[in-house]
């Protein structure tokens, strides 16, 4: 079975049609997916802004950041569960949609970016003086901010095309 066929099949499973046709479940999933943004992407945005010296600057910032990142995991758990179920309902139509494809590529880029940051820069963070974020870490932050905005734009736009 090709990937395209598998997406077609996924959209037609009884669970998918049940969610898509439910009067309250689909709006509930969509609303949860959107309102988990502040707890997931929002925390990452503030981490990036902190790296760029734009907020939460000071001696206490490091602990604040690690705690905010821990909270973001709850937000991302909600994102993946609700996003996975929403995708199930629209899998066949999502497969060829350019905005869906762009969103998935953006998420992949963000995952790689976060992994690079985690390995290369995160362990050295306590050694940086306030406001002296290395250029590489700043690059990761700017990339993250731009691509997360791209994810939001693509996610909102693809929903208009189903």
């Amino acid at each position, binding site marked *: 079975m090709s990937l395209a066929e598998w997406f077609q099949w996924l959209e037609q499973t009884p669970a998918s049609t049940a969610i898509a046709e439910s009067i309250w479940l689909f*709006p509930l999933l*969509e*609303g949860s997916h*959107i*309102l988990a*943004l*502040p*707890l997931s*992407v*929002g*925390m990452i*945005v*503030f981490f990036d*802004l902190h790296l760029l010296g734009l*907020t*939460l*600057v*000071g001696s*206490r910032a490091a*602990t*604040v950041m690690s*705690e*905010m990142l821990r*909270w973001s995991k709850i937000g991302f758990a909600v994102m993946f569960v609700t996003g996975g179920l929403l995708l199930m309902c629209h899998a066949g139509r999502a497969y060829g949609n350019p905005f869906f494809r762009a969103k998935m590529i953006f998420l992949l880029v963000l995952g790689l970016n976060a992994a690079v940051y985690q390995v290369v820069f995160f362990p050295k963070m306590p050694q940086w003086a306030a406001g002296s974020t290395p250029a590489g870490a700043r690059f990761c932050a700017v990339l993250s901010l731009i691509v997360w*905005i791209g994810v*939001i*734009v693509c996610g*909102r*736009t693809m929903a*208009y095309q189903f």
Partner: protein
Amino acid sequence: MPLIVFIRDSQYGMPIAQSVHLVGLTILLATVLVLNLRLADVALKDSSLHWLAQQLRPWMLGGLAVVLLSGALIFIGTPEKYLASNPFRVKMATLFLAMLFQYGALRRFAAPDSAPRSRAISLIVAAVSLTLWFTVGWAGRAIAFIP
């Protein structure tokens, strides 16, 4: 105004305007979450609420400005649609209450000379604030589903 016509009539106008609305929402509600989690003593106990509020204030006001401006541009294209919508009325009422509560109550708790307060009061204030702000969001989403 061409911008309003672009948002209302062009293929990508509304998705773009709503994306801007969502970016503003992400920033605004992230600051609301952080401040209320701290106020309720659930998170970030090493930092004072005053310091957090001071650091986040420009972003909170910036996020609010973005949602209000993008929301107004979306509204003005088809005002009759929104004025007839029950969820929209709920959204505007709770938005007003949430901003009032933020300004009246939370700001006082974040003052540097804020008197020590009981855990119960902090919890209630945080819960009310979070409920109000997230009701605004849910009511906004409901516009698409409920007349």
